């Protein structure tokens, strides 16, 4: 069975490597999260919001033109059709309900692409709670539409000015805020990263993705299991949700697509499974990009949501144990997929998501295979980037 032990380890990865200042909050979450999530009242409220507010179930769509092009059966799990346009809201709905049960009065979050920030600002508006979102100063520039959305929703966006001024640094600032506000604040982490119980908690909230995939595939193909599930991995939350109910199904290949930036070995990359080594980042023992001295390396990807120097401990375990197959996709491959695939299916996913779609160019499969791709989000936020590079790819 793939899952955590009582201390939050997936095999050798996970745990809670946190300074003492965070101990009361983390210990409280560790003690309470499973009980709260499993309460029938919590589940009723969670399911109701997922249906009526988020718009779940999200469709599972047989992409016929794409399937014909690649000569395989491609299904797209349409997380882009969720309210706020990505999978991130599954987690924020769950965590805000949990924060309320714990009596918290203030919410903080980090964001890279801004999708998690928007999803957090949204549920905070819904519940009438104050919300502060930390976002790297670089990401504030490259994902401007989402900054405006967060402001519209009443959230305060605070720029992270340290380090590479991207997702890693926004996460550091959010953790520092939590240290400074230890009593009334809940930190809604946006991916399956951070100290235990976050990786498992976020995976549980995202597991609705594969829960739906099972019955949707059964309806459409007669079988609940595909041959492969493909998802992009920043921290790994959409992948964790898409894999969750298949983790112990040996016949289902799990394909983890990482951002190779300008090339895996170019020095400007975020391909953690290739470049990463064992260490600690944001409270979790996992694989991360670091110097031999243990300083965390600043990653690079054109996509703000994949620009993270680590991966969640579940993914480190899946990759180290060879349960998941990592694939690295460069900025160029992702952009090429963007211009090609938008026109094939009339869908413009997020730059992060195009990394997963580009994996079709390199992964091995049989023509009879059923491949599900987690369409983690929509691309409105990336239009400026797509248009900026448009002429280079459309000659």
């Amino acid at each position, binding site marked *: 069975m793939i899952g955590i032990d009582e*201390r939050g380890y997936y095999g050798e990865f996970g*745990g*809670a*490597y*946190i*300074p*003492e*200042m965070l*101990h*009361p909050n983390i210990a409280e979450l560790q003690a309470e999260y499973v009980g709260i999530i499993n309460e029938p009242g919590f589940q009723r409220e969670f399911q109701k919001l997922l249906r009526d507010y988020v718009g779940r179930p999200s469709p599972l769509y047989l992409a016929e033109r794409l399937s014909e092009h690649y000569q395989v059966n491609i299904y797209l799990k349409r997380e882009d059709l969720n309210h706020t346009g990505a999978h991130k809201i599954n987690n924020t709905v769950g965590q805000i309900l949990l924060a309320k049960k714990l009596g918290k009065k203030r919410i903080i979050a980090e964001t890279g692409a801004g999708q998690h920030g928007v999803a957090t600002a949204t549920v905070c508006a819904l519940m009438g709670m104050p919300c502060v979102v930390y976002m790297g100063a670089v990401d504030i520039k490259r994902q401007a539409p989402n900054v405006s959305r967060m402001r519209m929703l009443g959230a305060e966006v605070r720029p992270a000015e*340290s*380090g590479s001024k991207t997702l*890693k640094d926004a996460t*550091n600032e959010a*953790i*520092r805020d939590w*240290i*400074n*506000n*230890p*009593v009334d604040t809940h930190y809604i982490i946006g991916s399956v990263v951070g100290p235990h119980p976050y990786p498992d908690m976020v995976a549980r909230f995202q597991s609705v993705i594969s829960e739906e995939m099972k019955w949707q595939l059964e309806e459409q193909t007669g079988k609940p299991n595909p041959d492969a599930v493909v998802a992009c991995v920043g921290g790994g939350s959409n992948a964790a949700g898409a894999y969750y109910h298949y983790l112990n199904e040996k016949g289902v290949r799990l394909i983890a697509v990482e951002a190779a930036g300008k090339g895996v070995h170019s020095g400007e990359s975020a391909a953690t499974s290739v470049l990463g*080594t*064992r*260490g*600690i*980042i*944001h*409270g979790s023992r996992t694989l991360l990009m*670091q110097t*031999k*001295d*243990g*300083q*965390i390396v600043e990653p690079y990807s054109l996509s703000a949501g994949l620009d993270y120097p680590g991966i969640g401990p579940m993914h480190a375990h899946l990759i180290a144990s060879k349960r998941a197959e990592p694939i690295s996709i460069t900025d160029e491959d992702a952009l090429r997929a963007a211009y090609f695939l938008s026109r094939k299916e009339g869908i413009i996913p997020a730059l992060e998501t195009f990394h997963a779609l580009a994996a079709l160019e390199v992964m091995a499969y049989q023509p009879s295979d059923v491949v599900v791709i987690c369409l983690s989000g929509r691309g409105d936020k990336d239009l400026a980037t797509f248009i900026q590079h448009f002429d280079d790819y459309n000659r």
Partner: protein
Amino acid sequence: MTNRLDRLFAEKQDHILNVYFTAGYPSLEDTLPIVQALDAAGADLIEIGMPYSDPLADGPTIQESGMKAIQNGMSIPVLLEQIREIRKHSDIPLVLMGYFNPVMQYGEKRFFKDFAEAGVDGLILPDLPVYEYETLYQKAVEEAGLKMTFLITPQTEEARIRAIDELSTGFVYMVSNAAVTGGQGEISAQQTAYFERVAAMKLKRPRLIGFGISGHQSFETACRYANGAIIGSAFIRALSEGQDIRSTVISFVKNVREGAAAAAPSAK
């Protein structure tokens, strides 16, 4: 040889001044002169910070000093050499403080052994959890002869304070308030209530109060409730602004011990 921390705590129970600075800051070769000046100025104990790219519990002052130190070329092997050199010149108790990832990459057991042999007396590794310490590392730390210090905060429950007191072999590090390092304000009534509550617990280990201790007044307040205090960010700010290391350090320590009036007689 007795551990220098044991020696210090046997000799002195109050007004222990522990000064923190980041190794390799302001410049790479400043580690030794800073230690020598602190020793000469009358600091009791020095906490040498191992710079880290992502120091979660630290405010901007220590973050920036760490980034600068890394750019200057500071690393664990360089620091090891500097400690060996320091021990040719000074016998002041030394504690290393840093995040666990660089220790892991160096090799945990090799780290404990090499630094103990070089002359380090104790460790503070704030993001190493108690359980992992006990199950994986305690034996090696103790065999190397190093003293371990864990942190408590105003939010730490009594039973956990007791457990941390048991596990700490150096001193107990009392984080003064719920905040990252670098605060400069006065000490509040809420904080002194926490200091009193912990003092009344009669812990086995000496207590040093740190975070937000920035000068004579806050040092004196802390010393009323604990065996001493730790000054970090304020010292780093002084190093950033000062011209000559030795005179900066000496007047800083004098100021902390005696107050600004004594340290800097007015021009009149």
